[in-house]
């Protein structure tokens, strides 16, 4: 491993500053004691963090996002596992087309999905419902879930399964006792990535969410388009803190690069 030269290190420092600057600024402004956007020059204050708790709108939106992400990630995984088994383990006519179809939501801009779901839900009477919102999120996060599960099924050796079958185990027993435990890391990784993607989704949700199903990103977006105040900064800072804790745990468990390669390509 050769060392980086001084120019490389200067570039690297500038890059890291660029990546972290907006997040650091949000966290600093969150601690201001003043009533407007400013740096906490006169000491740190928790005033605006207390203000979040006094604002039921944000708390409700946060709980809605949490609930929505858990429900839609779980549905997406329940559907991805059998589909991954089919794609990874069988050669059948239409296999390539199925795979492309299941990954296709990645190619479609979220704004296009948003307008399509809005039209569809209005026509079938699901507009403004939680079930509609959850199903639309399932479509958006399916490719992420599918890809991570698919990766774990593809690398799997068949020997243990063959042994179980030869000893007379049924299909269901083989799946439950052998296959499922072996692909649990893929399922868990897929669930986490699906959860995060659903929790952060704004562009599609902005079309589909109603006042009773408003999610945290939509609530925050609406707030920012009206006014940028220390309240929104403290809320964002709280989200950053939670995400960082989450991130460190994920990195220890999986390696963030491995998890996120699934998100990019």
């Amino acid at each position, binding site marked *: *491993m050769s060392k980086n030269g001084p120019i490389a290190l200067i570039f690297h420092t500038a*890059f890291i500053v660029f990546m972290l600057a*907006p997040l650091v600024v949000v966290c600093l402004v969150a601690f201001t004691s003043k009533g407007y956007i*400013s740096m906490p020059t006169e000491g740190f204050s928790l005033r605006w963090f207390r203000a979040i708790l006094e604002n039921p709108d944000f708390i409700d939106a946060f709980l809605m996002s949490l609930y929505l992400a858990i429900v839609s990630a779980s549905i997406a995984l329940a559907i991805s596992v059998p589909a991954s088994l089919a794609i990874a383990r069988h050669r059948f006519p239409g296999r390539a087309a199925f795979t492309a179809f299941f990954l296709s939501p990645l190619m479609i801009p*979220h704004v296009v999905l948003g307008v399509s779901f809005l*039209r569809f839900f209005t026509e079938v009477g699901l507009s403004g419902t939680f079930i509609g919102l959850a199903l639309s999120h399932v479509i958006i996060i*399916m490719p992420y879930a599918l890809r991570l599960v698919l990766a774990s099924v593809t690398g799997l050796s068949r020997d243990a399964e063959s042994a179980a079958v030869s000893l007379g185990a049924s299909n269901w027993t083989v799946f439950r006792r052998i296959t499922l435990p072996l692909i649990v890391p893929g399922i868990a990784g897929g669930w986490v990535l699906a959860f995060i993607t659903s929790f952060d989704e704004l562009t599609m949700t*902005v079309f589909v969410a109603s006042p009773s199903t408003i999610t945290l*990103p939509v609530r925050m977006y609406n707030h920012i388009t009206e006014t940028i105040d220390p309240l929104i900064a403290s809320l964002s800072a709280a*989200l950053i803190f939670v995400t960082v804790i989450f991130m460190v745990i994920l990195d220890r468990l999986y390696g963030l690069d491995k998890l996120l390669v699934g998100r990019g390509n």
Partner: protein
Amino acid sequence: MAEAIARGKLIPPYLLSTPALLLYCALLLTPMLMTFLLSFNSFDLYTGIKPDYSLANYLEVIQDKYFHVIFLRTFGMALVVTLICALLGAPEAYILNRMANPWKSLFLLAVLGPLLISVVVRTLGWALLFGKEGAINQTLMGLGLVDEPVKLIFTSTGVVIALVHVLVPFMVISVWASLQKLDPATERAGLSLGASQFTVLRRVVVPQVMPGVLSGSLIVFALTASAFATPAILGGRRLKVVATTAYDEYLNTLNWPLGAAIAILLLVANVIIITSYNRVIEKKYAEAFG
């Protein structure tokens, strides 16, 4: 034995794919088809959507200068953001890869971590930095580089800077993935044969990570072209892009057919660019390695 499982005993693949297929047909294919049909309907301010079919909405978008500006701005921005992401992200991935742990994993976390933080939060950070009293203007004026605050919010420069911040992790991770496949022995071989560091970089490293840069570019381009939150917050009404225009047609003007036509055009443009880009690259690599 394995064949026995594959042929007879396991549940057939079509049955396993059925839940996903049903979901996709009901919730992806049907809505997309409905939107496609909707884009041919007409709209009246008083009576709403009329169930007639014509190309009027598409003609309006294609003929109106207002929409030309929006589409050109969107794809122009996507091009610029992609270029900057490639120029910043690829070297950064290379530098990160040459670091030793714990720095390597720590900085990788700092670069990729923001991907897990909501785009709204990251854009808010830039809105705070860009303000007249924001950190950027304070620094520039403090250093005496400018006399009066630089206008960044509601400008395309501001939107581009924030979009690069939002999307450059995708480039880093894409290049990073291809660097993991690179054999460090090839670099050492080049050096031991007397090539300079720069020559090794240019002749050995760059060609091998190029596929990573190209696939990263595709992701960044597609995501910039359809970005909503960042241009909406930092660009405002004056700096509309395709996604925010479709949003306004849907939720403010309530002209759904026109909004649908704009959305369909965005989708078609995206798909054409992605597939032709893939084709050109495949051809190029087929020539190089074929």
